[in-house]
């Protein structure tokens, strides 16, 4: 910020983008920022593939008994949609992209603790993704993303083993990313960066990493057992051969419920950055938001059997897991209240990222509150495995995680690329997404309560009206995703150059140039209080 008047810095300055140009310099990079860009490109590809499957499914469900696709094809489509979206888009979405880019920047480090491991994570992700995609597209897999036994282990005649291998390998990618973040956050903080000065995004990444490291191996071993069962023809989970299918569900949900928090906690972290930045205020109840992240990560491990209330577990088990599931709602509520309170007496600018953030709060609130319905034993025994569940988790996953990802991507786009996105287009897309999303998924709550089961390619005619609304909404939603894809790519070519801190936000990442130099900071920064909006001179940022 010292006045060095006349050198047009951005033209000569070395950034992580222009340091080298060869393809090898990208594919062999150890720079966390370049790896983040690689991840952004790869998960966008996976999102498009998973989204296309969703489009076909919504078209199929436009009429009660459409002949667009066969039953088997439909089953393969929702499996593809589930596996790709969960394991290859949502799980890595924010941590591997924004997390990878921002964790070192926000704590004032030059890179993650283990850059080679970081690159290896990306290669594992790509290897796992290619395997799974090959299996899902050539021939297909029809088990659903949950791989429930004994259907997946004995009865399905599709490429289950390949898909499992893909997910298994991608799991190790997550584990190594989590390991890298934990060590980096513990050991690489710059001078002055104490634990309670960490940006809230870092707290949420830390909580997410705990889940990565402690939950993912259980999924890996469980899927390995399913593969073993298929290969050897022995009954680990097949009751006809002595196994127990409910054991699979226990092991699977021990990972897959915390995995839900892998998807939403980073989103909460992004929102905890966006709201202060666009209100120019310190987050209300900083410590409570930070501790709520940890509480969610830990309590999230204690609630897995709420996916199994009607699966044949004991009634006592149901009661225990129900009450624990309600407890995990409390820290989520605390976050929502604190975000809302942060707005009070702020200086609120409704720019694109803020629109996404406020949309997130609304949709996450609906998603979270409908989660209470599912945790309530007496209601779950009616709506379990219906569209109510589908609507609930899409409100959390798409309304929550994806909205946050979009918001974060816009907010840090100038930092990542050095270019500004077009603000008007951004706001338009955010509004379209919000409308399309609600039209797509809100009718599904009603469908679910009426009893329409999930994973049906044909349904009773009385459900049609809500399905038509849902499909119409999906069309709008798709437009809402295509728009940003176009204008963000366009901004690379035509976007205005962003200065170091175009949004006048606090945080170490805004103190370095955009895009940052290969080593992030020209000299190691010294951290003060986070969110120091009271000290900022907005006229001269």
């Amino acid at each position, binding site marked *: 910020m010292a006045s060095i008047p006349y050198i047009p810095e951005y033209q000569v300055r070395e950034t992580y983008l222009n340091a080298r140009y060869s393809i090898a310099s990208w594919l062999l990079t150890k720079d966390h920022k370049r790896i983040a860009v690689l991840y952004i490109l790869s998960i966008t590809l996976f999102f498009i593939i998973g989204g296309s499957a969703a489009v076909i499914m919504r078209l199929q469900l436009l009429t009660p008994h459409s002949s667009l696709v066969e039953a088997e094809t439909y089953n393969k489509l929702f499996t593809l949609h589930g596996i790709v979206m969960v394991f290859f888009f949502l799980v890595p979405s924010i941590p591997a992209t924004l997390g990878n880019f921002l964790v070192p920047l926000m704590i004032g480090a030059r890179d993650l603790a283990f850059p080679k491991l970081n690159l290896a994570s990306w290669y594992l992700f790509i290897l796992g993704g290619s395997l799974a995609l090959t299996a899902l597209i050539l021939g297909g897999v029809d088990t659903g993303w949950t791989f429930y036994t004994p259907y997946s282990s004995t009865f399905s005649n599709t490429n289950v083993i390949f898909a499992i291998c893909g997910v298994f390998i991608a799991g190790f990618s997550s584990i190594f990313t989590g390991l890298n973040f934990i060590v980096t956050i513990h050991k690489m903080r710059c001078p002055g960066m104490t634990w309670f000065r960490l940006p809230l995004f870092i707290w949420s990444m830390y909580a997410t990493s705990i889940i990565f490291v402690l939950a993912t191996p259980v999924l890996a071993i469980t899927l390995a057992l399913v593969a073993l069962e298929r290969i050897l023809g022995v009954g680990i989970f097949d009751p006809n051969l002595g196994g127990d299918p409910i054991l699979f569900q226990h092991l699977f949900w021990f990972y897959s419920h915390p995995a839900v928090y892998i998807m939403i906690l980073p989103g909460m972290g992004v929102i905890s950055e966006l709201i202060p930045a666009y209100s120019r205020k310190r987050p209300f109840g900083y410590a409570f938001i930070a501790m709520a992240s940890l509480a969610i990560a830990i309590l999230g491990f204690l609630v897995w059997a709420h996916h199994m209330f009607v699966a044949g577990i004991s009634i006592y088990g*149901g009661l225990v897991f129900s009450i624990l599931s309600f407890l995990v*709602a409390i820290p989520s509520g605390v976050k929502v209240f604190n975000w809302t309170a942060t707005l009070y007496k702020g200086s609120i600018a409704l720019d694109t990222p803020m629109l996404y953030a406020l949309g997130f709060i609304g949709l996450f609130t609906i998603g979270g509150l409908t989660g*209470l319905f599912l945790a309530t034993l007496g209601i779950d025994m009616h709506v379990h495995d219906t569209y109510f569940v589908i609507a609930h988790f899409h409100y959390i996953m798409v309304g929550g995680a994806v909205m946050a990802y979009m918001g974060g991507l816009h907010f840090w786009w100038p930092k990542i690329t050095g270019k500004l996105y077009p603000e008007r287009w951004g706001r338009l897309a955010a509004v379209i997404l919000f409308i399309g999303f609600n039209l797509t998924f809100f009718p599904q709550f009603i469908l679910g309560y009426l009893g329409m089961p999930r994973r049906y390619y044909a349904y009773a005619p009385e459900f049609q009206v809500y399905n038509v609304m849902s499909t119409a909404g999906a069309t709008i939603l798709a437009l809402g995703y295509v728009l940003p894809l176009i204008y963000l790519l366009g901004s690379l070519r035509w976007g205005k150059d962003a200065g170091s801190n175009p949004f006048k936000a606090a945080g170490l990442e805004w103190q370095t140039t955009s895009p940052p130099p290969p080593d992030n900071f020209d000299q190691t920064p010294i951290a003060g209080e986070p969110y120091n*909006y009271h000290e900022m001179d907005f006229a001269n940022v």
Partner: protein
Amino acid sequence: MDSPFKLFPPQAAEQSAQVDHLTLFLIAVSVSFMLVIFAAIIYFAVKYRRRSDNERPPQISGSIALEITWTIIPLLLTMVMFAWGAKVFVAAHHPPDDAMEIFVIGKQWMWKVQHLEGRREINMLHVPLGRPVKVILTSQDVIHDFAIPAFRIKQDVLPGMYTTEWFVPSQLGEFHLFCDQYCGAKHAEMIGTVVVCTPAEYERWLAGDLSAVPPAIAGKKVFTLYGCNTCHGQYAPTLAGLYGRPVDLIDEHGNHRTVIADESYLRESILYPNLKLVTGYPNRMPSYKSTLSEEQLLDVIEYIKSLSGAAQTAPYLGPPLGPATQPSNAEPKIENPPFANYRTNQ
């Protein structure tokens, strides 16, 4: 009712209203929270909109009192939800003793229903109005789920294990029966119709199929065929009056415990005689796991239950009807074509 925009499925069982009341309570709580939060966000976003680019708002870092408030109030509300939900759920898992029983076997992709009086049906379930009905479920292959939205109930149907659900039909008519657990290619076609009829109609319907053998009678044949009666009552515990009563068990260390002889206990004792030994009787019984089919097993259990005496009455012990057939091999007569209610198969 004719509007396409229905919000609630029909309330066709006594517990439907209980579940709906619980749901309405949750909706009320959720909507109040949503209104508060949404109103606050919109109000703040308008009231405190940025008026100049260099504006610096006052800083507020938090309030312990508020944090405690919005931790405690939701906590209390969720505990009410838990308690109420648990009450409904526990009630839905404790059928009354006089509930009539119907066996259902799920297989890819149909529901086979077996009434105790002998009538069998596929993808249809006839039940009488106003009587508690307990459905005992098992699967021949993968996991299915027996769901009747109008009754607000569902339960996974597992291979190798019995699960149950019960209800009291309270409205005449036909209602959807769905498989809610993904079970393979034609999961969406594993559907059927629940027909609630008056008790008189139900009796007439039951009597309609004269060739059917009641399971208790079929079970008696199996029981005699395998010579069960040569031991039980002499070297082995008597089975008369066993069902529903506590059984005193002993383990290898001489510790006693008591279980109720329900269907699961009977099933387990036939399949794994050694797992739960009755005090005073060393085990002499072989396992019948690979001998009996699921249907024969159901028949034998029904026969043992018919020996209970008081609760069950005459028709079960009457002379066998029709020719002596092995119940499991007799293909049930298909009353209604599968998937009749909204889609014909192929």
